[in-house]
Structure formats: structure tokens, C-alpha cells
């Protein structure tokens, strides 16, 4: 894979390198970008998100390795229906983050666990204060696929303004990249940041 090394360069040089590589990369193809600057890394994250490029990150010894994939057009990512559906606004959001690491709620009978989790997610919509964010990792990401029984509830929560973050490593591990039905596939840095800055973590 092509490697774009921006180590030792400050903003905006890494962004320029990323944009140039994106232009030269075919849809669906990936490249690797290296940076050793925290601010450049943060800015790259926002920039890539706004430029509709997917990316995964690993960090070691203060060097961030971003594996950036150019998405194929915009069609692959968006469902026209989502744009037509009226967004539901004016919901109070609390200073808490819901973390879902499993597709089941509690220990015990498997079938019961699935049912409880579905009820929990449905119940979130009725709370006086919605979570500010929902984070899904490990088995939790299976709840956010198009065939999940709670996908409509999750889409509703997103429309109500709840940010839904999925662990990219987990999505890839379970080969779910093509069946993600809601939320933003995100890196561990963003997930850690969301959890670290939350007033409370709610884990069913």
C-alpha cells in the first residue's frame, strides 16, 4: 500500500498531502498516512470525516498511522430515504454516554439477553434526557447492522441528535463493513475521547 509520510511536518502540510493522495486514489482503494503531531492528527481526523473518507488509526511511540480508504462515490454511503425523513429536533441531551460492548444485556439465557438489549435501546428514546453519544464495540457493533432488530431505533436516536460511534476494528473483525446501518465508523482515539469526556458512562 502507498505510504504518505508527513512526519516532521506541521499543519497544513499533512492535510495537503492527504488531499493530494485522496485525489490520486481510486474509490475503494486505501493508502497509509503517517504523522507525529497531535494537532495535525486531530485536524486530519476532522478533515477526512468532512471529505467523506474512511480511516482507521493506530498509534505507537507518538506516531499515528492512518489507513485511509477513499469511499466509492457518495451513493454507497447514504440512503436517499434518510434525507427525506424529517429530522426530529429539540431533544434534551444529558452529559452521559451509553457504551454497548455486547449484543446481549446481562448474564444468563442468550435469548433473554438479546431481548433485554433491544428493549433497553428502545427505552432510551423515551428518557427525558437522551445520551449525548452511544459507543458500540466488540459484539456490540452487531446491533448496528442493517439486519439488526434495533436498527430502526438506532436510526431514530441518531435523528434525535445522538452521536452513534462504532469501533472500526470491530466492524472489520466481524466483516460488517458493508452492512453497517447507522452511526459513524470511528477510531479508538475518538471512542476513548468520547468516554473520557463523558460525565457518566451507562453500560447495560
Amino acid at each position: 500500500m502507498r505510504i504518505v509520510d508527513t512526519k516532521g511536518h506541521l499543519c497544513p502540510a499533512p492535510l495537503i498531502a492527504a488531499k493530494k493522495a485522496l485525489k490520486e486514489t481510486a474509490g475503494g482503494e486505501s493508502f497509509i498516512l503517517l504523522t507525529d503531531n497531535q494537532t495535525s492528527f486531530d485536524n486530519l481526523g476532522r478533515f477526512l470525516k468532512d471529505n467523506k473518507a474512511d480511516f482507521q488509526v493506530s498509534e505507537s511511540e507518538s506516531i499515528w498511522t492512518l489507513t485511509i480508504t477513499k469511499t466509492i462515490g457518495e451513493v454507497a454511503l447514504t440512503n436517499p430515504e434518510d434525507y427525506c425523513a424529517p429530522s426530529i429536533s429539540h431533544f434534551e441531551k444529558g452529559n452521559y454516554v451509553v457504551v454497548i460492548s455486547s449484543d446481549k444485556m446481562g448474564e444468563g439465557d442468550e435469548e433473554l439477553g438479546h431481548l433485554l438489549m433491544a428493549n433497553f435501546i428502545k427505552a432510551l428514546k423515551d428518557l427525558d434526557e437522551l445520551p449525548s453519544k452511544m459507543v458500540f464495540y466488540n459484539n456490540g457493533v452487531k446491533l448496528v447492522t442493517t439486519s439488526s432488530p434495533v436498527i430502526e431505533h438506532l436510526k431514530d436516536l441518531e435523528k434525535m441528535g445522538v452521536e452513534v460511534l462504532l469501533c472500526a476494528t470491530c466492524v472489520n473483525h466481524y466483516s460488517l463493513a458493508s452492512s453497517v446501518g447507522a452511526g459513524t465508523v470511528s477510531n479508538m482515539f475518538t471512542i476513548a475521547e468520547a468516554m473520557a469526556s463523558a460525565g457518566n458512562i451507562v453500560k447495560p
Partner: protein
Amino acid sequence: MVESGGCSAKISPKQLEEILKYLPLPKDPNILVDIDTHDDAGVYKVNDDLALVLTTDFFPPVCSDPYEFGQIAAANSISDVYAMGGDPVLALNIMMFQAAKLPMEAYAEILKGGFDKATEAGVRIIGGHTLDDYPPKYGLAVVGYIHPGKIITNAGVIPGDSLILTKPIGTGVILAGHRLGMVSDDNLAEAKRLMKLLNKTGAEVMKRYNIRGATDITGFGLAGHTLKMAKASKVSLIINMKEVPLIGNSYQLIDDGCIPGASFRNLDYAEKDIDFASDLDYNLKMIAFDAQTSGGLLFSAPSDKVNKIVEDLRSAGLSDSKVIGYATEPKEKCIYLNN
């Protein structure tokens, strides 16, 4: 000479707001404008006919020529007085310069640039202070006169007013692109010309039309300063980004990814209060947050007078002056950024 980002060297607006929360505001009926509304300068009433406008600003070099840097820094420092509708009168030099590292001629050239620009503005520099520090930084602390009844603040915008911008934006992008060899000499020269240009002419037109709401566009970018204005005036402001004049190839630079770090800082501070139109061009969005050095005036004017005002600005030499948006009653968001 070492170059950096001019007004982009500002502390993040988010951090500044956090710090200012802990600073008690002095209580005095003669203080007419203080930091409460995040205005451009403070105003203190001396008597019923006279108030003083006080402001200061200094930053590291934006260009390699020390004389030009001095001119730009001085124009930028004095600008806040113009934005309040005042007449700048006196100033002190503020300088940081490491003589062991840099030639003394550069020191003299910076001061000369500042002196010449101050003289052009009718300002007398009557002193100053220098610290031994690297990289160099320069600016002025400026005092201006104003009539207490004729102060133009960022709180004076009325719903229905149109918004006029007197200089094109993009100095942050051009300076960053220049350091990476992406900017032609022509475009750099145009950016420098604009940074050296005093906001004096713009202020004269404002005063002629009894304008009440204005600010100047500097480190927090067009969107950041517009936001402070919207909050202080308790209105919502609609900005049509396609109407905003841009310097040289700054649009192309942003499209190539040349987005200075300060733009992300400004975005981070302001985005929660801004509605971004769903079809807003990403490059136009990011240039709205570009930190300007010695940027133009942004002021509000009654819609029936705007054409005449823009005409006056243009014939006074501010040829890029343009209506870029308007004010409405407060809506859900403070700022609406459209294409």
C-alpha cells in the same frame, strides 16, 4: 526573518473564554465597553464629549521583510479603534526581539514600518517596551478618541440590516500556502497590500452613515467574529459564503488541503452555534474560519442604504467591498452559513 501566522498566533478562543470567566470585571459607570461583549476594544468615558478607546495586539512575523511586518502589525493594532468608530491618536510600541539571534537592522526596520503606518493613521508613537525573546513579536497599544454617544460596537446590529465586508478574506491561507511554495508572487503581494491597508477609509464611510454595529475581522476568522457580533447584538446572522470576496487563489489552496491549524481551532470554538447549510461547499466553510491578519471591517447597515454605502466604499478604494449577508431576529442558531 522567521515567519509565522500573524493573528493565527492567537490563543484559542475557547481557552480564552474559559480564562476570562475567572477574571472579575471592574465596575465603573465610565466603562462604556468592556470584555463582556468580546468587543474589539475597551471604551472609557472621560466626560460627556470624550471617551477613550484602548486596544492592543501583537504577533510574530507574517512575512520575511521586517519593514512590511512592522507596517502590517501596526495597521492591525490600530484597526480595533477604527472598528469602534474612534480616531486613533497615541500608541506605544510592544516588541519582543532577540538581539543575539537577529540583526539589529531588522529591529530598526520593524519599528520604522510601525512608525510609518502609525503616521499614516495620524497616530503618534510616544514610547514602548522591548523584551529579549525569540521569535520576534511586534504590535502597538493604541489609544483613540471617540464621542461617548457615537460608539460603534459589535452589539449594534439590528434585524433586517445587511452586512457589508470591506476587505476580501484569505490571508491565513495565503500565508500558510506561501510558506509551502504554493502561492504566486502576485497573490502574496495582494495579501500583503490588504494587510497593510488601514481600516481608516472604511471607518470614515461607516461614520458618514451613522453605522451602529461593526467589528473587524482578525484572528477568529470571518465566522468567529460574526458569531461574537451575533451574540453581542442578540440577532442571528446569515452569511452567503459565495458572496464573500476571497484573496487570490485562496479557494484553490483550501481545495488542495492547505487549511491552517488556526482554522480548526476557530471551527472548534464556533461550530456549535453555527448552522451549516447541507449543500455548503466544504472549501467555503473552511475559509470562513481562516484567521485573518489585519482583516477588513464587517458592519451592518439598513438595507435601503447598502447600495449607496458599498458604492462609497468602492470609490474610496475598497474595491472588494460587498454585501455578504444580513441579520434576522434570533433563531435557533446564531450564524447560518450558506453557499
